[in-house]
């Protein structure tokens, strides 16, 4: 195995590891708390500064058979929460000392209460990120929220939150974010160098590794692919994949899209890595304030944020332009209200801009890709046949 292959094998192993062994290992080495979080965004810097390992819990993909999870959710609710409950029930999350449920949607919100009922001994907190983006209104509220979380974690054994430590953590995540961004840019320039199913595995690895380890992994990967002479360009259509910001698609789906002739040149996977655009200010006197401000002012346009004035559609069109995508595939989880309610507005903007698009839904455990392959293939065909 080449080094690159080894690295990818490690990332895939992390992706498939439904018992979160990496977290247990980290705790054995560092002895801190590990706190799980659901999609989409939590300020991982805060946890990191307190010596806590933030662990992204993004469902269980297609490897887990749902036995008891269905006892918690009706058929018309997305798949993510049922696999998460299943993980909780079968002990896979025992290494976590608590869970954060950010204000992503009603399903995750209600899951926070279910967690309290089901695992009363564990810390479970609903993180109500503000929808008011005024520093003096929503900002103040958010700050109080974060302080409360920090106090609670401290009570439960985490280090006290110190500004200096927080500044260092912000720097660590700034570096991580810029490496993620660099890979996204590289994929835009040379999509054959950074196949999406690989990039995806790397992002997923960031859910369970410490930021330091993850940053090292990203760097190593980048160097390896730049040096790999075997990767060559193919005749594929360039597409932007929109809508997979919460429940994550199965790896097989991404492979299917790539095989059906698509280069994915931008996407919404594991958005916590890219929620804040650019660097968070790391040298101010009030790093907590800086973190709050970054949330208010540097956040991306996402379906789970309130944005009026059609700014969201515009942001998508700009992403298409920036990534040189020839079309957009809306690929959202079934029954995902935020993604699916957003879609008509995004579609309208994309249509106004004359960009081709198509759409389909998935669940994290979808195993049958025939229909998706047909659709994506047709979409790629129509782009390829008509491109000059």
């Amino acid at each position, binding site marked *: 195995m080449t080094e690159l292959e080894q690295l990818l094998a490690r990332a895939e192993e992390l992706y498939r590891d439904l018992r979160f062994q990496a977290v247990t290992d980290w705790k054995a080495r560092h002895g801190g708390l590990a706190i799980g979080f659901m999609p989409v965004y939590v300020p991982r810097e805060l946890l990191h500064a307190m010596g806590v390992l933030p662990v992204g819990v993004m469902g269980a993909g297609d490897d887990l058979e749902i036995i008891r999870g269905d006892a918690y959710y009706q058929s018309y609710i997305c798949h993510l929460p049922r696999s998460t409950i299943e993980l909780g029930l079968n002990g896979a999350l025992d290494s976590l000392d608590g869970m954060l449920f950010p204000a992503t949607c009603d399903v995750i919100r209600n899951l926070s209460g279910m967690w309290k009922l089901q695992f009363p001994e564990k810390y479970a907190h609903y993180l109500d990120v503000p929808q008011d983006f005024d520093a003096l209104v929503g900002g103040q509220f958010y700050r109080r929220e974060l302080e409360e979380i920090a106090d609670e974690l401290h009570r439960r054994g985490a280090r006290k939150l110190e500004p200096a430590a927080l500044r260092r953590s912000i720097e660590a995540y700034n570096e991580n974010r810029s490496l993620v961004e660099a890979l996204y840019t590289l994929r835009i320039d040379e999509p054959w160098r950074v196949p999406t199913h690989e990039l995806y595995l790397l992002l997923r690895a960031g859910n369970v590794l410490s930021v330091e380890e993850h940053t090292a992994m990203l760097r190593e990967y980048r160097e390896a692919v730049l040096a790999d002479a075997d990767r060559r360009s193919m005749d594929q259509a360039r597409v932007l994949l929109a809508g997979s910001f919460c429940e994550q698609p199965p790896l097989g789906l991404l492979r299917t899209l790539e095989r059906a002739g698509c280069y994915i040149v931008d996407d919404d996977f594991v958005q916590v890595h890219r929620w804040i655009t650019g660097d968070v200010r790391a040298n101010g006197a009030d790093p907590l304030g800086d973190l709050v401000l970054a949330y208010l002012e540097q956040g991306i346009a996402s379906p789970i944020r309130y944005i009026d004035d059609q700014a969201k559609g515009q942001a998508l069109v700009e992403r298409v332009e920036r990534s040189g995508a020839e079309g957009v595939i809306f690929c959202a989880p079934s029954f995902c209200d935020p993604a699916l309610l957003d879609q008509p507005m995004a579609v309208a903007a994309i249509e106004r801009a004359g960009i081709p698009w198509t759409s389909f839904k998935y669940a994290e455990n979808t195993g*049958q890709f025939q229909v998706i392959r047909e659709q994506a293939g047709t979409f790629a065909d129509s782009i390829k046949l008509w491109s000059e």
Partner: protein
Amino acid sequence: MKIDYCVGIDLGSTTTKAVVLDGERHILGRGITNSRSNYDVACKVALGEALINARFSLIDGRLEHEGIDAERRRELLTRFELAFREQQYRSQLAALRASLHQHAERLALGAATTSTLERILGTMEQETTELYRVGASRKSDFFRDLAGSRYVELAEAIAREGSHAFDPLVGLFDKAILETENSTEAVGTFESHARKAMVQAGDPALQRAVTKVLSIELVQRLGVGTGYGRQRLPFPEKLIRSEILCHGLGAHAMFPQTRTVLDIGGQDTKAIQVDPNGIVTSFQMNDRCAAGCGRYLGYIADEMNLGLHELGPMAGKSCRTVRINSTCTVFAGAELRERLSLGEKREDILAGLHRAIILRAMSLLARSGGIEDEFTFTGGVARNTQAVKALRVLVGEHYGERKLNTSPDSIYTGALGASLFAWREVSRQEAESVEVLA
């Protein structure tokens, strides 16, 4: 002599089951038939079968009375029953033949078709004796399946040699079988078959027993109906009970310690929790989709040209379970073909399909409140050994040690519950009429 009985009829989507219960709440007989035919007929046939079965057990009782030992009795009864079934089969085959010819004539299919039909039917008739030989194996107990699969095989062979097109032959069969099934006459009467069969079996003790039993009058006190088709049951509304309650009570009667019941029938799957008195405390049912119930396996069996009996044993040979990705039955059928063509083993795919259906049941069970000790598996699919095995494995993995009850008669659970309700109703009415009299 006269015996009072109550009957419970479970009008299932695939099969209709009847249980005949005497005044002591002992099961006298059980009967089952396809529900394909119309509902009235299905009920009649199931009851008829249950009464035949009742008479068989009465005959057994007579023989015992005469001091004949158990082994000899079993042998005699087997011989008698096979002879009886053979008579029945012949009678139905004759009806089928008449109907086939009628349709061929109406469609003016011509002499070639008539003679082809004769070729097929002639062969089938010849094979009848062999089919009911002691020790011979049969694909099914239902005339439709038994005659149907042989007819199709023969028609296919004829089509292969180029003598006659296949589709019209099958078309004729599909029409004729509907008619044959829907006719109670085609089945014939107990008495006439029994008389012939007892002669055929040729044993004086048996003849005495049969003659004696033929003179017993079986008197129905009340019938209670349940099941998928319960709105259409030929019963007054007061005598209809929800299938959930009947299954709960029936399972309780069979296994008094049971707390969780899983019933996988042809068209629906139910997960039921009952208390120590057999009272249902919670339940879950699936939606109307074949994925996850018996028809799923039936469809797959058809796709593979296998009998339902053969499915479980074949899957049992697997050492590697394939994961089936399609939920929809039809798509699973397509997936099956695709996988076969990719060279995967038939038994492995089948094992995957069985696991898939049990996985769905697991989620219903979870919804109804989990799996308690004891746990009873009923319905037609409980006859499938592989389904039982898959269930055992999954229950063990996720709920730990549970006593799992199954019974060869579990398909009759609902009907048994209904027959118990019938006797309760009789007692209630009697109590009421006593009140009125007083």
